[in-house]
C-alpha cells in the first residue's frame, strides 16, 4: 500500500508530457510566457522519436521558389489530407511555419544553405515547390538538438525517464460519467513513475500539454520506437476528451524490409526527392501505373518528363514516385501482392543507377550509413529493397486549432498526439512544422490559462492512492500472462487485420481479438521488482496501446469508404458524403464509442484557393 504523503511531489503551472519537438517547443513557449514549466519524458532528453525525422521541415519560405507562399502550402496540405483536415489548423500551420523555422536558427540550428546564404529547401512528395528546410537527411536530429539546447539554456526542469500514467482532474472522486457530465473535470495534475527507481511522483499543475507522439508500436512493422504506445491518446480519452480521425494511419511507403531485425526502419522520402525511383522485379517503374485521377494534372506520365522535372520544374510535371505517401504505399502493396515484388517482399528503390556516388553520399549520408551497417547494402552501387511501414497516426486528440486545448479544460495536445491538422493523410515534412507551430501555440496558451486558473485545490490523497494501486497491479499477480507475448499478439492483430488494406470482416475479427487481448492484459504478471523493470513498463503501456488500437479499428470499421491513410477493400472508392464527416472516438465505460461530426466549414476566401489552378 502506497502512502500518498510519502510520494515525491512537485508543483508547476504547465506540465508537458513528452520531450519531442512539440513538447520542447511548448516548454520554451510556456517558459517565455512566464510560466513555471516541467517537461516529463519517458526516455532521456534528446532521444524522442523526432530524431528519426529525416527529410525536412515544410515551410513556405520561398527561398528556392519565389512562387511559393502559405496559400500554396495550405492547398497542398489540404489536398494531401484529402480535404479532411481542419482548415484552420492547416492555415495556421502554413502561415506560421516559416517563422518557426527561422527561429530555430536563432537558437543555433545549422540548416543546409542556398547559394545566397538562405536556408535551402528540398522537394518532397505532395509539395508543389521545393519547401523542406533540411540538414542532410537528419533534420529531426537538428530540430531536437536545437530545442533541447534551448530548453537547457532556459533552465527548464526536465524529468527524464519518467512516465505519466494518469491525469488528475477536479471532481475526480465522483464516477467518470458524472465527471464528464459536469462542467468540471479540469486538469489538476498528473501521476507518474520514475523508470529508474519505480517510485511514484505526483505533479500538481492546472494545465497539461500532451506531446506524446504516436501509436506505431501497436503494429508489427513500424518505423516507430518503443515509446510510441499512444500514451497521450489514452490519457486524453481517459480524461474525457475525444480523438478525431483515428482511422487514418499512415504507412510510409519505404521502410527497410530486410534483414528481419530492421524491418520497418524508415528509408527517407528524400531518396525519391533526390532522384530515386521505384521498380518492381521486372524492372518497371510501376508508379506510372498508379497515378490517381485526383493528381493526374500535375503528375508526369512519361519517364522523360519525370526525369526532366529534377532539372527544370517549371516545364515538367512531378514524377509519380513523389505522389503523397498513401498513394505510393498502396501501389507498392499491390505490386507485391501481384507477385512482382523483390526477394524479401518489397520493391526496389534505385538511386544508384541514377545519381553519382558523391551526390548520394553528400545528400543522403545517414541512409548510406544505415544500409551499409544494417543490411550490408551499398546504396551507391545497388538498389534498396523497401516496403510500407507504419509511420504516423493522423488521428489524435481533438483540439481547438488556435490554442491546442481539448474539450477538457487545462488539457492541451500538440504534435502527433493532436488530431485534425493532417486530415486523412500527412504530407512528408509537415510533421516537423506541425510540432513547431502547434507546440508553440499550445505552450503559450497553457501558460496563459495557468495564470488565469484559480489556485488548485490540489490532488486528493484518494486519487493518488488509486493511481498508485493501478500502477502496481501487475506485481500483485503471480504466474499470469507475459507482457511481451501479449504485445506481440496485439501487433499481429493490428498488422494483419487493421493494416494498409482493410475489410469489415477482418476488422470485426480484430475487435473480437482486441477484446480477448484486453482480458489477457488484465492478467499480466511481472517478474522482478520496481527498479528499471521493462516488463512492468510494458504492461502499463499495453493498456494504452489496446485502447488506441480499439479506436483505430472502430473508426476504420465505421468509415465505409477509402480515403488517404484508410483503404477499404470492400469500399474502394472515395465517397463524397464521407468527405464532410470526421469520426470522433470517446471512452464509454471500458469501451470505445464512435460518433460522427460534421467537418468544420472552410471560409470562402480559403475555399477559393482550390478553384484557382
Amino acid at each position, binding site marked *: 500500500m502506497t502512502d500518498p504523503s510519502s510520494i515525491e511531489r512537485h508543483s508547476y503551472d504547465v506540465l508537458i508530457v513528452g520531450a519531442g519537438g512539440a513538447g520542447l517547443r511548448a516548454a520554451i513557449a510556456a517558459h517565455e510566457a512566464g510560466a513555471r514549466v516541467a517537461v516529463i519524458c519517458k*526516455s*532521456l*532528453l*534528446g*532521444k524522442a*522519436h523526432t*530524431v*528519426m525525422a529525416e527529410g525536412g521541415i515544410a515551410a513556405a519560405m520561398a527561398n528556392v521558389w519565389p512562387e511559393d507562399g502559405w496559400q500554396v502550402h495550405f492547398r497542398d496540405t489540404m489536398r494531401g489530407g484529402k480535404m479532411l483536415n481542419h482548415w484552420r489548423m492547416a492555415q495556421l500551420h502554413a502561415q506560421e511555419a516559416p517563422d518557426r523555422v*527561422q527561429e530555430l*536558427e*536563432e*537558437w*543555433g540550428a*545549422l*540548416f*543546409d*544553405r542556398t547559394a*545566397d*546564404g*538562405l536556408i535551402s529547401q528540398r522537394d518532397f512528395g505532395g509539395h508543389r515547390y521545393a519547401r523542406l528546410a533540411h*540538414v*542532410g537527411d*537528419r533534420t529531426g*536530429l537538428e530540430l531536437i*538538438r536545437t530545442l533541447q*539546447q534551448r530548453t*537547457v*539554456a532556459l533552465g527548464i526542469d526536465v524529468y*527524464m525517464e519518467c512516465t505519466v500514467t494518469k491525469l488528475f482532474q477536479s471532481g475526480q472522486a465522483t464516477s467518470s460519467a458524472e465527471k464528464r457530465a459536469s462542467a468540471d473535470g479540469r486538469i489538476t495534475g498528473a501521476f507518474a513513475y520514475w523508470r*529508474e527507481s519505480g517510485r511514484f511522483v505526483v505533479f500538481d499543475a492546472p494545465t497539461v500539454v500532451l506531446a506524446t507522439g504516436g501509436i506505431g508500436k501497436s503494429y508489427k512493422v513500424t518505423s516507430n*520506437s*518503443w*515509446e510510441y504506445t499512444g500514451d497521450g491518446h489514452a490519457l486524453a480519452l481517459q480524461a474525457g476528451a475525444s480523438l478525431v480521425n483515428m482511422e487514418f494511419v499512415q504507412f510510409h511507403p519505404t521502410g527497410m524490409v*530486410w*534483414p*528481419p*531485425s*530492421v524491418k520497418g*526502419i524508415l528509408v527517407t522520402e528524400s531518396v525519391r526527392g533526390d532522384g530515386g525511383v521505384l521498380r518492381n522485379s521486372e524492372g518497371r517503374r510501376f508508379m506510372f501505373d498508379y497515378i490517381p485521377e485526383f493528381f493526374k494534372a500535375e503528375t508526369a506520365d512519361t519517364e522523360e518528363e519525370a526525369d526532366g522535372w529534377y532539372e527544370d520544374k517549371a516545364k515538367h510535371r512531378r514524377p509519380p514516385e513523389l505522389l503523397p505517401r498513401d498513394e505510393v504505399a498502396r501501389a507498392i502493396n499491390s505490386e507485391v501482392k501481384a507477385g512482382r515484388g523483390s526477394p524479401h517482399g518489397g520493391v526496389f528503390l534505385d538511386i544508384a543507377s541514377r545519381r553519382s556516388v558523391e551526390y548520394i553520399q553528400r545528400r543522403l549520408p*545517414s541512409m548510406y*550509413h*544505415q544500409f551499409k*551497417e*544494417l*543490411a550490408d547494402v551499398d546504396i551507391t552501387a545497388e538498389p534498396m529493397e523497401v516496403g510500407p511501414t507504419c509511420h504516423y497516426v493522423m488521428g489524435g486528440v481533438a483540439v481547438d486549432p488556435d490554442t491546442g486545448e481539448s474539450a477538457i479544460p487545462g488539457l492541451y495536445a500538440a504534435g502527433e498526439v493532436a488530431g485534425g491538422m493532417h486530415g486523412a493523410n500527412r504530407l512528408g515534412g509537415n510533421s516537423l512544422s506541425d510540432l513547431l507551430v502547434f507546440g508553440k501555440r499550445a505552450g503559450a496558451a497553457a501558460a496563459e490559462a495557468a495564470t488565469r486558473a484559480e489556485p488548485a485545490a490540489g490532488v486528493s490523497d484518494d486519487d493518488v492512492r488509486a493511481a498508485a494501486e493501478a500502477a502496481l497491479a501487475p506485481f500483485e499477480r503471480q504466474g499470469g500472462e*507475459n*507482457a*511481451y*507475448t501479449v504485445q*506481440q499478439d496485439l501487433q499481429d492483430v493490428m498488422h494483419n487485420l487493421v493494416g494498409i488494406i482493410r475489410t469489415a470482416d477482418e476488422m470485426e475479427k480484430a475487435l473480437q481479438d482486441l477484446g480477448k487481448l484486453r482480458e489477457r492484459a488484465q492478467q499480466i504478471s*511481472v*517478474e*522482478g*521488482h520496481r*527498479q*528499471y*523493470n*521493462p*516488463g*512492468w513498463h510494458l504492461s502499463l503501456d499495453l493498456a494504452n496501446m489496446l485502447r488506441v488500437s480499439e479506436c483505430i479499428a472502430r473508426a476504420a470499421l465505421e468509415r465505409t469508404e477509402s480515403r488517404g491513410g484508410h483503404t477499404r477493400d470492400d469500399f474502394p472508392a472515395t465517397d463524397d458524403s464521407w468527405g464532410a464527416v470526421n469520426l470522433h472516438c470517446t471512452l464509454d465505460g471500458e469501451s470505445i464509442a464512435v460518433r460522427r461530426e460534421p467537418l468544420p466549414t472552410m471560409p470562402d476566401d480559403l475555399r477559393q484557393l482550390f478553384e484557382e489552378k
Partner: protein
Amino acid sequence: MGYDLKMKVWRGDQSGGELVDFVVPVEEGEVVLDALHRLQATQAGDLAVRWNCKAGKCGSCSAEINGKPRLTCMTRLSVFQPDETVTVTPLRTFPVIRDLVTDVSYNYEKAKKVPAFSPEPRQPDGTYRMQQEDVQRGQEFRKCIECFLCQSVCHVVRDHEDNKEAFSGPRLFLRYAELEMHPLETGDHRQAAKEEAGVGLCNITKCCTEVCPESIKITDNAIIPVKERVVDRSYDPLVWLGSKIFRRSSSDQ
C-alpha cells in the same frame, strides 16, 4: 541460418552483480539488441535495457560488447563467430542503475555548463545569411546522437573518477567547437573551454573518435581546434605580452 548464441550479460545494480550466462536463438542479420530483446521476451522479463529507435539514430542503447563501448543496435551478430560468447556489460564509466542501464546524468550536468548560443542580430530582411562552407564544420558536430560512447571510453573520467568534476568530455568539446565555429555566434568561449570544460585534461589519445558511431572526427576536427583556440587565448606569448603591456583583455584579439 539461425543458431544458438552464447551470451554473458551483466545483471545487477549498485549493490553488486555478475555476468550471467544465457543461450538465445538468433537469426541471420540480427544485432546484439535483438538478442537482448529475445532474452527479455523469453527468459528475463525484467532485464533492464535502455533503447529507443533501434536504427542508430537516437543513441540510447550504448553498452560494452566484449569490452568495447558500442551501440547494441548497430552491432551485427555477423561480426562474431557463431561459437563465440558475446559479453554485454553496462558502460563502465557511469554509475550503474540496473543491468545494462547506467546513470548518464553526468553528461546532462555537463551540458548545462555549456554557454548558451548568443547570435548576432538578424539581417534587415529578417533572415540570417550563412554560407554552406561556414556551416559545414558545425554540421559535422551536430550529427552527434549523444550516445555518450565517447564519454564512456575517455580514460580521463573512465579511469579517474576524480576528474569528473573538472572535465566535460568529448561530447561537450563538440559543443564548444560548434560554438567557436558557428558563423553567427558572438561570444568567446575559449576561457570556458579551458576552465569550465577542462580541455587541457584531454591528451588526445583519440578513443572518442574510434568509438563514435557517427564517425565524427571528434579529436581532429573539434578537440584539437578547441585546444588551438585556447592556445590563441591563453598560451600565445605575444598575446600574453600584449595583455601585460597594454593591460587589455586578450579576449578581443
